[in-house]
Structures are given as C-alpha cells and as structure tokens.
C-alpha cells in the first residue's frame, strides 16, 4: 500500500485513457441497429448478460482505480513516511508544498511541452507514413513491422538501450567520433539538448502506434471514394488532401487524445534513461518523475500522495477539456455525415 503515492496516478490515468478511449471509440462508430433494440428495454437475460460481462471489469476498476484514488487522497493529508499507520495529520501542507514548488511547475511545463511537441512531430509524420504504407508496394509489410517494432518492445528495455547509447561515452558519441566529429555531445545531461533527445526517443518509440492507428483509419475509408475522385480527374495529392485526410480526422483526433494522455503520464522512459536525479538538471523531469522523487525517493509518501492527487486533477482536466473541445465535434461531424 505504501506505493499508493506512486501508483495512484499511473493507475487512474491509465484507466482513464482506456475508459475515455472506449467512450470516444464507441461514439465514433456509426450507430447500428443494436442501439435501437437496446433502448426498447431489456429482458432479464440481457441484464444478466450485461451484469456477468461487466461485473468483473467494474469490480476490478473500482478496486484498483477508484479506491486507490481515495486512499491517496486520505494519505495526502498526513506527514506519512510509509511505515505503519498515518497519524500525523497536517491538513493541506502537502498541497501547499507541491503547488509552491517551482520544480513541480517546471515538470508540469515539461509535460505540456512534450504533449505539444508529440502532436507536432508524430502527427504529420504518422499520417505521411500511413499514406505511404497504404499504397500497394514491395516490402510494405516489412516496413510496417519495422515501424511497429519499437512500440512492442517494453519501455524498460528501450530505456536501458537508449541510456547506454546516449551516455557521453556511449555508442552514439562513439559513432560520431568515428565519423570525425570529436566534440562530445551530452545528449542526456545538457539542458539545451536533453528535451529534444527525449522527443526523439518518444517519437521513435510511439510513432509505430500512431501509424497503425492511421493505417486502420485509412483502410476503413471505402476505395470507391478515391476511385470516383480519380475518375473525376483529381490528382493523387488532391485525393489525399480532400478525401482521405478529412475522413481520417476522427482517427487523428483519437490518436491525439491518446498521445496527450500518454504525455501527461510519461514516467518510465525518463526515469530509466535519465536515472533518479539527472532529469532535474537537464529539464526533462515530468510530473510523475517529480512525484516519484519527492514521494518515494524522499520517503515522504503522504506528500507523494498529494502530488499524485494534483497530477490526477491536472490530467483529468486535460482529458475532459480535450473531450469537450475536440472529441465532441468529431462525433458530430462523423454522425451527421453518415446519417445524412
């Protein structure tokens, strides 16, 4: 239980994304007959089915997501070191400490920077790659696999690999040395470079996921549309720009949502590549990193819980805002065009 401070946000964040994704995904789908039938009222058999199927998921969700959030909330009001029961009630001190800490706000800034840069880098790149891989060409499946491989490898392995390669005496500087470039670049510890290093690794790691999503989206677009456009004399780029991209918009929005949520939760890659402390001096610390350091590493689990709650609220606000301002229009557009 003492890990509450650390896991609490990770879990709700994770589940949050899943829940929201499910919601977003469902609304993006064209309405089918199922929905109309359901609204007429259910037989007890139907209800039993729903109870049986959703029961375990609800139990797990409540136990491992909702309950920990409240446990974290409870501990956040104590000066608690993680051993034994929490007895030293200190009110909102942990919150004022967190909100008054400039390192926390720079971590928040890094999270938002990572979210923004991820959209900027990965979005266009993923769309282009998906358009490319949507063509019939030789070696297509091989390229698809290669792009997807980094996403499949666990974060821990990726992190250790990149840490070894990016360290000052690592393989990348070694390669540069062989190419005749002898100035040592501190990819990890130089604050001017580190964030870009992180963006590179993130892009490399998660671009495969974006591409797969976009590809699936593209393949859901009926071929007749582009064929018809081609018959009407539209060029390849005109087809992509005026037919494929608009129809891909719902997919892009869902990917953007996932990407933003992922950026808010980012922890493992930073923690492994930068280690327990170096991210603070290189400007790559994230909210979760700050929480691990000032909650777990400093043995102040009550304070860690308070940070977790703050991070949870920030992530929730971001997620809800995204849903309201981006996802809603998505469903409106998609639904009306189909039902027209």
């Amino acid at each position, binding site marked *: *239980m*003492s*890990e509450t401070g650390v896991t609490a946000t990770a879990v709700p964040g994770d589940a949050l994304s899943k829940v929201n994704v499910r919601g977003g995904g469902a609304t993006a789908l064209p309405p089918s007959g199922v929905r109309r039938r359901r609204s007429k009222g259910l037989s*007890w058999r139907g*209800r*039993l089915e729903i*109870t049986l199927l959703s*029961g375990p998921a*609800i*139990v797990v969700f*409540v*136990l491992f997501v909702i*309950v920990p959030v409240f*446990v974290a909330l409870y501990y956040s009001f104590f000066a608690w*070191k*993680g*051993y*034994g*029961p*929490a007895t030293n009630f200190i009110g909102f001190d942990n919150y004022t*400490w967190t909100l008054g800490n400039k390192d926390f706000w720079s971590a928040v800034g890094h999270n938002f920077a990572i979210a923004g840069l991820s959209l900027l880098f990965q979005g266009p790149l993923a769309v282009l790659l998906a358009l490319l891989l949507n063509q019939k060409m030789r070696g297509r499946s091989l390229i698809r696999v290669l792009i997807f491989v980094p996403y499949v490898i666990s974060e821990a392995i990726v992190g250790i690999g990149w*840490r*070894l390669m*990016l*360290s*000052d*005496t*690592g393989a990348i500087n070694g390669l540069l040395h062989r190419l005749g470039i002898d100035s*040592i670049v*501190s990819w*990890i*510890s130089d*604050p001017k470079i580190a964030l870009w290093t992180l963006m590179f690794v993130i892009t490399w790691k998660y671009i495969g996921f974006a591409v797969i999503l976009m590809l699936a989206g593209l393949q859901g677009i009926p071929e007749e549309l582009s064929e018809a456009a081609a018959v009407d004399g539209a060029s390849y780029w005109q087809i992509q720009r005026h037919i494929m991209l608009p129809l891909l918009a719902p997919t892009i929005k869902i990917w953007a949502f996932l990407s933003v949520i992922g950026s808010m939760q980012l922890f493992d890659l930073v923690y492994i590549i*930068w*280690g*327990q*402390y*170096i991210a*603070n*001096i290189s400007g790559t610390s994230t909210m979760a990193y700050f929480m691990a*350091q*000032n909650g*777990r*590493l*400093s*043995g*102040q689990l009550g304070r860690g819980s308070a940070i977790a709650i703050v991070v949870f609220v920030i992530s929730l606000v971001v997620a809800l805002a995204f849903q309201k301002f981006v996802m809603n229009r998505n469903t409106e557009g998609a639904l009306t065009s189909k039902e027209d």
Partner: protein
Amino acid sequence: MTHAKKFVTALTITAMAGFALAGCGNNPTDPATSGAGGSSSAAAGEDVAMTFWHNGTGDKSQAYWKDVVAAFETDNPGVTIEIQVVQNEELDGKLQTAMQAGTAPDIFLQRGGGKMAEMVDAGLVMDITDKIDADIKEAYGAGAFGFDTLAGKIYAMPMSAQPEGLWYSQDLFDQAGITTNPTDMASFNDAVSKLKAANIQPIALGAQDAWPAAHWYYSFALRECSQDVVENLATDKELADGCWLRAFTDLDTLAKTEPFNQGFLTTVAQQGAGSAAGLIANHQAAMDLMGAWEPGVIGDLTPDKETLPDLRWFPFPAVDGGEGDPDAIMAGSDGYSCSAGAPDACVKFLNFIAQKEYNEGYATAYATIPANSEAMGVVEDPALKAAATAFSKAPYSVLWFDTSLGQEVGNAVNNAVVALLAGQADPAAALAQMQAAVKAG
C-alpha cells in the same frame, strides 16, 4: 422473473462485497498484519518457511547465500528459506512497499540509521538484543553493533564494516608518477594534475545515481565539521554550523578542477563496464570514493571477474582549517534484520550467519571487511586491510549522513550535489536545499 432479477443483483452485490473485503484484508493501517511478514510464525517442530531479501547481485554473493541457506536448512530440518535478490538501488523502496502491504520478508538487509529508526518506530523490526548468542556478542566486540543499535536496543546483526575512502589503482598512480598517497587537498589536487598529465581520468564518479556524488559532499563535511557537530546531527535541526557550507564550497572548488571522468553525469555507480566501478576495474580511471563494498563490486566487473590486483586504499584527505579529525572515518554496516512478526528461526538464522566461519565467507564473497572481529583474519586484500586498519584506529566513526539524516535529506543532498556539479547551483543554494529538507524531514 423479478425474483430471478433480484437474485442476480444480490449475487452480484455479494460478489463485489466479497472482493472489496478481500481487498481490505491487507489494511495498511493495521500494524498487526503489516508486521506479520510473508509467512506465518509456526511453533517449534512445525514446518517454517521464511523469506529473505539481500542485495548481493554479484555471482559470488549469490552463491554464498545459497550455500549458507542450504547449510542452515540442513541444520534445522523443517525450516526453509526462500531467497530473493534485490538490486541495491531498488531495495529500500521495495522493502518499504512490502512492509506496508504486510508482505515484508522475514529476513532482510538492514542499513541502520534513520531508515532503521523509521521501521522501528512503526514496530516493523524485531528487537534482537537478548536473542543474540552470548559467544557471538563476545566475538563481535562491544562497538560492532553501534550502527544497528537504537536507544540501547539492537535491531540487526551486522555482517560487514564498510569504512569509506578512496579506492585507487596503484598501477595508474605509478604511471602518473604519484609516489606518496595524498593526505591533504593540496597533495590531492597535485595527484589529480599528475594523472591528467599522464592522460588518465583521475576520479570515476557515478553521478547519474547521485548518491556517489553526495558521498563526496559527506566526506568533505566529515573533514570540515567538528566531531561534536557530526555526532549531534539529529539534534541540530538547523545545520547552522558554517562547516556545512564550507563542505559544499570544497566540493565546488574540487569540481572546478574537472577531476571527474568524462560524462560523469551520465555514469552510473556500479552496473556494467561503463559505470564508475567498471572504469576502475578496467583501468579507465584512477580513483573512486566508496565504502568497503567497492573491491567486491569492482571485482565483479574486471575482465576475469577476479579482484583487481593493484587496487589500494587511502583515507579521504584532510582539508585546510577543517574542524574534523583527519583520521575520522565515515562508514556503514550491512546488517540483517528480522521483521517484527518473523518466526524464531529467523534469529536463529542471524546467529548462524554471524559465526566466524560464515562471516568469513561473507567477507570473502562480498570482498569486504567482516563485522565479527574473529573473522578479520580472512581479510587479505591489501586495499581492504588498509581500510580495516584505518577504521579500527579511527578516533570516531560516523554513519553515512544520508542514512542517519533520513531519506528526505538524503534526497535533497543528492539533488543539490548534482545541480552543483552541473553548474546549476552555487554552494549557498545547495545548502539552502539541504536545510529546507532537514526542516521538512
């Protein structure tokens, strides 16, 4: 229909409640369950299963513990011990989590100091004062339990003594023309210049893990601060003495001479050939400031996995105007504790491993200095011998400051020192960070 519906609903609710109750079984606020350990305590004659966590990830230390546990199990039929090896940097957090969840191991590595005090305060560690065999107590000597004692009670069986100092390669020192070991900062800086002139990286520093860098600060503080100040750490909550700032300034001055290995901010302490210990093991750097576990760690990273033949030791140099005794030593001790609810066999195991034979084996496997003074004969490594001698002659010894001051301060010093070494904080800012943590902790 309606009956069936109600029945299903009731069934679901019952199932959910059952799950919820099961979840509450490990109620974190219940000290009785959290102290109970991973196994039930059994009466004599019954089968007893215990869990054991240690940090000996090296081949030799893993083999040592396997053999010792096997020997103990043979001597005590019905007792089984399940070993889990936990990577050193992960151990404290994992232990804390397990203790809180009520799944603490019965036997675990104990570093003493503030961390131990927190566990003791929460009633999670067994008081073994009266359970240690009389002949073990005698063999160890009175001072040996110092780091594991709290308010007159002993909470762990020490297995090693780990004085800190500079471990260095004699070959590289010879190559650089350093004939006598540095005793003060002037001669130390001179040695650094000579090493640089000979194209040798003077000091290996695993600053990515931060704590090795913090040890440089602690060592400077040991030399700068008077015995009175360092021994009353827990009572002086302000860190008002000027020595704390001077120690940061000393470290800053040293760092400005660029004595550390290339890319020390991205160098880890102990894992792999590129780590600080690995650099020493492969003659890529000359010195490393560490506790007496160092020969073992280095030995695991040499190409032939044997102890480095030219490894030697000298104490941290004196600083000009320092109020601390230049012969004082900072040290730690790896001990082993039983969790509060562990079965009796646990203390039996601690007494078992403390015997001369097994403490010797421990010292050999970890390439360190045994806590049992009767086992001291096993120390043959010249570096370890030098460290052991200096330790026994030290006018006073001090436990690692991060261990004695607690995690909060240790974490703050880690951050402060890294920022200082990266040129992002000056000594005053670093001290302010440490002072704020002392107040909060």
